[in-house]
């Protein structure tokens, strides 16, 4: 599982708006009494906040009456959750088999060079976060990358610059 940075010191009142935090409370309220609520709560909370820093995990643990260790354990287990802030655009490079055999690795190396970040990192201007994914099922179009929800298929390393320059 991917290592994730701890960020206990983040000031959530600066990072998030009161509306966002209110929404999180509502989400907790909605799922509170349901069995197995933790993962759906985390999913929806991340949808609102974009990332889940430690203070938020504490709020969720308190709200659902779960030990913080369990919440932290779940967040770090599933690759969908992130505890660090993210870029405006998430670039996800598919390294599933079909993309890999069609040159996904070269695409990935090229993007790393272009953005000057490693996997899981965000560019200094908080524009792009680079991730890899395992097969998103668009194998027919490999190699593919996602920029947020947009898929770019049948890529060649030389086209990377063009693709990324469309996002600003």
């Amino acid at each position: 599982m991917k290592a994730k940075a701890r960020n206990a010191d983040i000031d959530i009142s600066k990072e998030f708006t009161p509306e966002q935090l209110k929404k999180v409370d509502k989400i907790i309220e909605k799922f509170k009494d349901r069995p197995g609520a933790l993962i759906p709560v985390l999913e929806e909370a991340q949808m609102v906040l974009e990332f889940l820093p430690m203070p938020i995990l504490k709020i969720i643990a308190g709200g659902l009456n779960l030990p913080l260790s369990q919440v932290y354990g779940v967040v770090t287990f599933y690759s969908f959750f992130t505890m660090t802030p993210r870029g405006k655009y998430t670039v996800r490079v598919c390294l599933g088999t079909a993309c890999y055999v069609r040159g996904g690795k070269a695409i990935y190396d090229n993007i790393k060079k272009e953005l000057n970040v490693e996997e899981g990192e965000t560019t200094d201007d908080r524009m792009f976060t680079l991730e890899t994914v395992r097969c998103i099922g668009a194998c027919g179009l490999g190699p593919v990358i996602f920029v947020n929800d947009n898929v770019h298929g049948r890529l060649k390393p030389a086209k990377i610059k063009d693709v990324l320059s469309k996002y600003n």
Partner: protein
Amino acid sequence: MKAFRSHFLICGGTGCHASGAVKVKQLLQEEIDKIGFSDQVKLVETGCNGFCAMGPIMVVYPEGVIYMSIKPEDVPELVHEHLVKGRVLERLLYKEPMTEQRIPTMDEIPFFALQKLIVLKNRGKIDPENIDEAIARDGYAGMAKALTEMKPDEIVKEIIDSGLRGRGGGGFPTGLKWKFCAQTPGDVKYILCNADEGDPGAFMDRSVLEGDPHAVIEGMVIAAKAIGAHQGYIYCRAEYPLAIHRMQIALDQAKEYGLLGKDILGTGFDLEIEIYQGAGAFVCGEETALMTSIEGKRGMPRPRPPFPAVSGLWGKPSVLNNVETFASVGQIIANGASWYNAIGTEKSKGTKVFALTGDVNNVGLVEVPMGTTLGQIVYDIGGGIPNGKKFKAAQLGGPSGGMIPIDYLNTPVDFEKVVELGAIMGSGGLIVLNEDKCAVDIARFFMDFCQEESCGKCTPCREGTKRMLEILTNITQGKGREGDIELLEEMAVVIKNSSLCGLGQTAPNPVLSTIRYFRDEYEAHIRDKRCKAVVCSPLFKSPCQHTCPVEMDVPAYIALIRAERFADAYKIMIKTNPFPSVCGRVCDHKCQSKCRRAGLDEPLAVKFLKRFITDNAPRPQTVPAPVTRKEKIAVVGGGPAGLTAARDLALRGYKTTVFEELSEAGGMLRWGIPAYRLPRNILAGEIQDNVAALGVEIKCNTRVGKDISFEKVDKEFDYIYLAVGAHKSQPMGIQGEDLKGVFGSVEFLRDFCTDEEAWLSGKKILGTRVAVVGGGNSAIDAARVAQRLGADVTILYRRERKDMPAEEEEILAAEEEGVRIEYLVAPTRITDKNGKVNGIACERMKFGEFDRSGRKKPVVIPGSEFTLNVDTVISAIGQAPDMTFIPKDSGLDISKWSTFVLGKGSKSQTTNPKYFAGGDALTGPDTVIGAIASGHLAAKDIDSHIREINGEPAYVEPAAEKIDIPFIIDEESEEEPQAKMPELHAKDRKRSFREVELGYKKKAAVMEACRCLRCDAEVS
């Protein structure tokens, strides 16, 4: 009114707009103004012509000419040509599409025709967001039957009888699973759908959820009724937002109709279904881990028993089935068990959906009856491998599965057979791999996946996969050690046996299966540091060099062409290859097959560049190599293998003598390849400069066993290298083969090359209608020579063109010169009149099963016999060495293919330690470059053997002249195809034996050299 000479009507429709019509229009106006034609030409924007895909479109009146796909950069030329010169610019002229072109029907396209759709029956047919459309195609009919007419145990029985097995991977009988759960007492039970499709390369579940969600709901309701569940969950990966979205709509619509929820269809049965989003953990595809995850915890598996049927989600009896399984259930109930179990093989019933991806032409979802062969799936439905590459293996079952190599294309794919071959059916991801994929690298890829996805609960899985990955990574980086393969095998067994869940139990499968089928590749990586597929880049400098049998430093001499240092380029070449002029003409250029430039446009024309250097470089002065060693060495056979060995041995200080049977050295290069491909003086020059000038004695007209006895050679020399080639045509084994007018291709070509004068002057006559049987280079050479002698030539080949072993360029050239080729025919006998050939009887062939080379075997079409009227037949179906000169008591073993047998542990020493062998006489017919490599190896082995016996230190190559290789590359590479090789026109070469390829001019060569991507360069 003002009269214009010309009207330019440019399309202003949306389509042309989108393809840049505005810019083109503006440029047109500027260009027209520039040449001062403004008052003669009127530029008008018109409505759409409806040829939007070819936009921007422009119609020019009064001529009525239509131009299409006009790019801004075309404008000056267009205006200049059309207006100033008054000529139509052909390049941009609208071409009438072949409107009469017939569109094939679905039944005529194997991709569609060979599929049997059950799970995918609604694909592309319904709007998945409209429940009525699903109902209109019999959606929920099975559910209605199950709820109104059947008792739970009847449903279970029907499913058991149908033979349906879990489609998620395990293949456990679905009905049995239901039965166990139904028998477990309890008020609260759960029905779960596994839609956490995590295998890379598998996307069938996603497609079903997106395209036909109601089929899944229907199956779940039926299952719920069978086991007595009233709550269901669909556990779907969050990576599938569209699937989740459509499934949610489907659930809502079903609920509105009362097909879900309370009192379904008024039958009193209740079921609620919720979607539960997975959060990105591969292990959650495992059933117990999935349940733990729904419970809101880290998704780790738990030990079984108790099985989920007894204690599953929240400790309650639960049934978990995969999407594809549920999607089959409704139709089984509606149509009955016997309808379903009539499809498939004995133990695997029904159909299976495969996600066909990788190196295959038709990528997509494929639903076929169980038992369809792998070859049918890959070749017939998948349309084969793109770009003329070869099939290597199919990877089945993702990270838990294995590879099925080329030898098993005829294997019927079902649960049992696939396991027998070391793969698993898995969820049905079928990834086709071509020859450019490295088995070790693929194993490493899957191990990387598994070690990252291991949940960490079981130590052997957590630590073992890490350790295995480390070993595999080392091997791919050239740091593999003896014993690594055995260690991997040992660890695999431990991990499999000691892991709780499917992830660990199957994680070593890809490694085991690649070791099983591609052990030689592992060994080559570990021992020789070679990656046959040219993937593991730490093992080599550049793909071209790694692919070349003599590892010519291709990027270096190409860089020197770019720098116009041709003399240095030649020096680089002869370091590894004494015959670059030859290889610049007749090499099969394996280097080009792996050239990375091909990913952008086309591979570098390495062969042509090599030829360019030899045409233009001054030759370095060769001085005789001093004889410093006492051992004398004989080489039998003056072909490329023998001459290369002789050169190397001379350079190492040995007195070497070459015995050549014919009047000139060169072997097949001199006596098999016609002069129009390889001019005689070029070959002779290179033999003189690079072999004879070193002091090697070449004794022509001296056949060992005839002109000098075998025994005499044995006595006079300390070691003997046997490189006699394969100069005897294989017989076809058909009636009439000994008639007058039937030749073997090798014999014919040799006779022609020996006595060219007689043939050309008409003293020797071939015949007027010639049939050549075979599809290799020798067949093409014979055909092209015969054509040049004025005959009407037909090549008969038993497979299709793409299967011909001859070089594509050669085949094309033969066709241009007028040679006809009949495919899929095989001769049965040669007919005669008064002992003279008058025809060849043939049968037409069609394709049957796959053979071991992965090509389909041609089989005779009964009753298809026909006779071709010919007066000459040339058989070119293969050649073998002539071993009649070897005495029985020589201690040299000969194989059943008439080739030399090697001594144990050597790649060149024969069963008599005094004798070494190489070239075609060892391998059977191979390429020039293969023979050269063989010669290098033999020289090295002979020298090492001598030194070892004498107790001398190993040979150290003297320091070579240092040639610095310039490093200039372009930042951006524009698409640019290969430079064309100038050739004699086909009509000029019909009766001529002048060289066909004329060689690059300097400008073309330097431009071609600039295309090199310099893969050898290490940029830090």
